[in-house]
């Protein structure tokens, strides 16, 4: 966990959220330090996705406090814009823009949000396409790529904004099994380079290998938070034990 203030990239304090009557987040408190990797897991409907989507303001919250890299997420539009420039996000359904080529998907935000010249944006895009190992697909449309390739493009697209934090919302859940590894490999490399990451996933192998700590959520609460070794071998809560017994066969 984070110690001094300057290194705390994400701070959530007692965050509550309701969808109508449904109390979906019940007092989330979480701190992520620079360079830390947090894997969030839990049964469906436990609020994992909602929690991660609060960090870049895709969902609002009704109570508590969220501060990202020192910027409070408090309803101020300027703050929201500043946070979104620093936080990249990868979605379960990739959400690439189907009417644009891979290259155009990648240079869109650098050119229009950061006002980067086209040539510079294209060089940056090629750099990240090589990193995710699909430079040869630059001029295809997303619909012409496999799921694994699309998700790697989506990761490259987020990286083109040079984010300080990357959020992954079940990045491999919509993929065919044989494509999961190519996406996880890219994520592992990213983690090894020191990116601050919050990853919602059920890939426990990935969690074991990469996570600094694992955060288990159930019914809108963080039930247990521990380094992987401890989390898998000595889970403290009964709910964690039950969950682990269901997903680890």
């Amino acid at each position, binding site marked *: 966990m984070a110690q001094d203030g300057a290194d705390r990239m994400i701070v959530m304090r007692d965050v509550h959220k309701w969808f109508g009557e449904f109390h979906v987040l019940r007092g989330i408190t979480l701190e992520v330090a620079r360079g830390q990797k947090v894997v969030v897991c839990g049964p469906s409907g436990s609020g994992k996705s909602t929690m991660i989507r609060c960090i870049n303001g895709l969902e609002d919250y009704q109570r508590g406090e969220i501060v990202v890299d020192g910027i409070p997420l408090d309803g101020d539009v300027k703050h929201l814009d500043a946070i979104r420039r620093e936080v990249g996000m990868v979605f379960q*359904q990739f*959400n690439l823009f189907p009417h644009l080529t891979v290259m155009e998907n990648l240079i869109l935000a650098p050119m229009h949000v950061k006002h980067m010249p086209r040539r510079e944006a294209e060089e940056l895009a090629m750099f990240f396409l090589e990193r995710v190992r699909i430079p040869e697909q630059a001029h295809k449309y997303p619909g012409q790529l496999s799921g694994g390739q699309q998700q790697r493009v989506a990761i490259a697209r987020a990286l083109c904004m040079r984010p300080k934090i990357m959020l992954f919302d079940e990045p491999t859940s919509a993929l065919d099994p044989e494509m999961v590894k190519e996406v996880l490999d890219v994520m592992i490399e990213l983690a090894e380079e020191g990116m601050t990451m919050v990853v919602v996933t059920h890939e426990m192998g990935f969690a074991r290998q990469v996570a600094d700590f694992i955060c288990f959520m159930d019914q809108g609460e963080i039930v247990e938070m521990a380094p992987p070794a401890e989390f898998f071998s000595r889970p403290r809560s009964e709910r964690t034990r039950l969950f682990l017994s269901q997903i680890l066969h």
Partner: protein
Amino acid sequence: MAVRSESPREIPRPPVSERIGPLAWLKHNLFSTWYNTLLTFLVLWLLWVTLVPFVEWAVVNATLAGTSKADCPADGACWALVRVRFHQYLFGLYPVEERWRVLLAFALLVAGMVPLFLPRMPRRILYAIVLILVYPPVAYLLFAGGRFGLVPVETANWGGLFLTLVIAGVGITTSLPLGILLALGRRSSMPVVRALSVAFIELVRGVPLVTILFMASVMLPLFLPPGVTIDKLLRALVGVSLFSSAYMAEVVRGGLQAIPKGQYEAAMALGLSYWQMMRLVILPQALRLVIPGIVNTFIGLFKDTSLVTIIGLYDLLGMAKLITTDPAWLGRAAESYLFAAFGFWIFCFGMSRYSMYVERVLAAGRERD
């Protein structure tokens, strides 16, 4: 795209037995069963009793020569009427010696639009916006005159196909942007914007265009201070534009609703502003989806322009009607109306074909998704 040449596909051909000769085709398609045979003969009979007399009237017995109804055969169409008055169908009562101005303005428009259709045109959108901003004042100057030594021509004398194209052109170029804004307004999270958009759309869609045109020509002057007049044509233009923008808004809204939520979220997560998200991500996809609906609205708008006759403007249909009142051609209304109908059809059919072409081109750009 070049990608397509990688996978040449065999076009499946029908088996040999189905490809032999017109007789086999006839038997297979028209006389395959006893009731198909019956239907074939019924249709042939219907064509015989309708089409044959029409062709006799419109072509065989018709005349193009002559200068009045006295020169026309009793049992044939009198296209001489159309020949003699052709320029009025095109220009209405626009002064004969000034008509070059109208032709010049349309030539300028065609020339100005050529770059939009070049395949490798850089900054196409920007050029289109400049064209939309620059062309109307130039065209208005040429049409109305009054400056640079051009003789003034009152809008009351504008007419015929020329007036139809002016109203339809203005209606089309204003209703699409206005419709997009209204559609975005209707889906806005700001309550006031949303309420105003909904109110406008539902109000305008709830009344016939004729009512709006009447309101514009009869009611509006009552509310203006004495001495202030607004040109009759301008009032009609505003009425037609607002009317079609309400319909356009609903077409565009249909497209917006078809875009998955993930597209909005990905755009927001990348830091795009609301307008950037709409302009770069959402609208290009949404508008592409509703091209048939947009063109449908354009075609409706083009034909609705004929309603301006009611407030005393002589568009193509108005001119056709006016010409039938000329004593020299009395009793030759059918020819005049048929010709006007043909004029409308040419343009509407053209728009329809063009939209099909655009859809095909866009579909080819992103196959396999």
